[in-house]
């Protein structure tokens, strides 16, 4: 099976977000594989081990994205592709990324493409479905189970806590939800082998794309942190009095009742 994984690097979940001059400050920040994309990498490796074939991990990013790709290779992926847009693109959005990935994947005859459900930074969840649409293949989002039998994929899809069971023909794009699997740690031999695995670097030129084709469809108007939470107020006294006071506060002061 010809399997592709779409991977994005995101801020480490431990990082504090700081905004300077209307932009998110990324100086000295540690990056990780987007946690949902880790489910995608794990699932790709499992499906390959069960059905044979090859797992290629693809990212649209910059020079530093190599670290996350190497981690995916250390987990067990076979090949990695870095589409480096650092020098060519000032800006990009989900449209940009999906279009670049389409250009890369259109002649690859992928049987299965896996992506994360959302990236934990911008959380749009759009790149996967947009790409499937552009490639003209089926797409199932937020999957929590995947069984492949020949050309048929039997899928559990998370629907706000319930499970929807689907059967879909390959080729197929899925986005992976928490609960699908338990991503492995890259093993020591895996880490050492990863440096010998192929990592191809491409620029948009190599995909016959130009900056104008990739102009983002959205515009960022403002970036700001949520307002700091104000200190709460603890009511005291008998329960009945507290309830009365609470109702009065909600009605008169906050005017929500």
């Amino acid at each position, binding site marked *: 099976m010809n399997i592709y994984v779409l991977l994005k690097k995101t801020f480490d979940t431990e990082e504090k977000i700081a905004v300077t001059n209307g932009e998110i400050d990324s100086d000295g920040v540690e990056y990780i594989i987007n946690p949902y994309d880790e489910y995608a990498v794990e699932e790709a490796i499992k499906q390959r081990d069960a059905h044979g074939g090859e797992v290629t991990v693809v990212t649209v990013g910059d020079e530093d994205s190599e670290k996350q790709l*190497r981690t995916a290779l250390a987990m067990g992926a076979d090949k990695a592709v870095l589409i480096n847009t650092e020098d060519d693109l000032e800006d990009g959005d989900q449209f940009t990324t999906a279009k670049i990935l389409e250009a890369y994947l259109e002649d690859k005859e992928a049987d299965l493409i896996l992506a994360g459900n959302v990236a934990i930074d911008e959380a749009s969840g759009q790149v996967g479905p947009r790409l499937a649409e552009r490639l003209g293949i089926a797409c199932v989002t937020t999957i929590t189970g995947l069984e492949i039998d020949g050309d048929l994929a039997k899928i559990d899809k998370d629907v706000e806590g319930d499970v929807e069971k689907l059967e879909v023909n390959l080729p197929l794009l899925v986005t992976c939800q928490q609960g699908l699997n338990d991503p492995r740690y890259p*093993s*020591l*031999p895996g*880490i050492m082998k*990863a440096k010998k695995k192929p990592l191809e670097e491409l620029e948009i030129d190599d995909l016959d794309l130009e900056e104008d084709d990739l102009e983002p469809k959205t515009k960022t108007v403002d970036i700001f942190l949520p307002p700091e939470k104000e200190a709460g107020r603890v009511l005291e006294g008998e329960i009945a009095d507290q309830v009365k006071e609470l109702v009065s506060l909600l009605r008169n002061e906050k005017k929500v009742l």
Partner: protein
Amino acid sequence: MDFELSKEQTMIRKMVRDFAENVIKPRTVEIDTQAKFPLDIFKQMGELGLMGIPFPEEYGGSGGDTLSYAVAVEEIGRVCGSTGLSYAANVSLGASPIYYFGTEEQKQHFLKPIAQGKVLASFGLTEPNAGSDAGGTKTTAILQNDEYVINGEKCFITNANYADTITVTAVTGKRPDGKNIISAILVPANTKGLKITSPYDKMGVRGSDTAEIILDNVHVPKENLLGDPEKGFKQFLYTLDGGRISIAALGLGIAQASLEKALAYAKERSQFGKSIANFQAIQFKLADMAMEVELARNMVYKAAWLKDHNKPFTKEAAYAKLFATETATRAANQAIQIHGGYGYMREYEVERYLRDAKLLEIGEGTSEVQRMVIARQLGC
């Protein structure tokens, strides 16, 4: 000069940290209070290839280097001193001497399963009357009909209750000058006449296994002799040099943990109407801790780097071991002080750091022995 870890070393740090945080950390309190060796954790560490970091693939290793291994010990020590100690002892003392001095056959037979993480191994050097004075070894091995017959007693041996193979040092003869010839011999733990018990109730590193070994007419084939029969003493000095880097890395991990806990608590704890991190008395403690941790890290990594580049590292390994382990004790002690009364309570875990750190100033060469080694290297 380049102070950056390589991509692989960075990935190893991240992987070991994730594993330590997710798998070991939830168990550290139980490992300490119940003094229970976490065999299942060692099994998982073996599967991840951690036991074979500094050994080549042909012997079941991962083909990494000493620096990667030191980083791994540091990260495990950061969450659990007991697990860190048993890990360091297994690789540096259990596996390494076989890798350094073993024949091809011994490496295939004994080293491979250790490096692959399938079994654990121990190094039986210390005796009741041969601690810092390792030359005072009393255990004997007499060659009879192509077999060594070993008699004696070993104490404070890490991991021996769980080991498959124990490298035992024993007197095998006398040199013309009357001094004992000490050799190292590989003894399978299930050999008849070998009795392994754990009579100890330790102050710290309580979850790390520590054993007493009685050897009563233990017969092993003469092929189990490790390395040069005349140079057993030199061999274990070299082994201990390497081991020191890992104990230094373990001290570094505990010191780092002490700093992190103390800093977090200082920011959170409020007295006199503000966070105690605003008080200079606390700030100076934290500044000293942070500085010493970083200095220890530089020394540990340098000693590892020297070893990886086949340069002499005896003196630097002693510097690293001495400074990093004493830093661990100081940092843990100050972490308790910054926590005040809460720090004295087990619940806050910093008291465990101090109990664990103290062992590191004693095991694998006391601080005093490190100073002796350094002085000797200076030509005294």
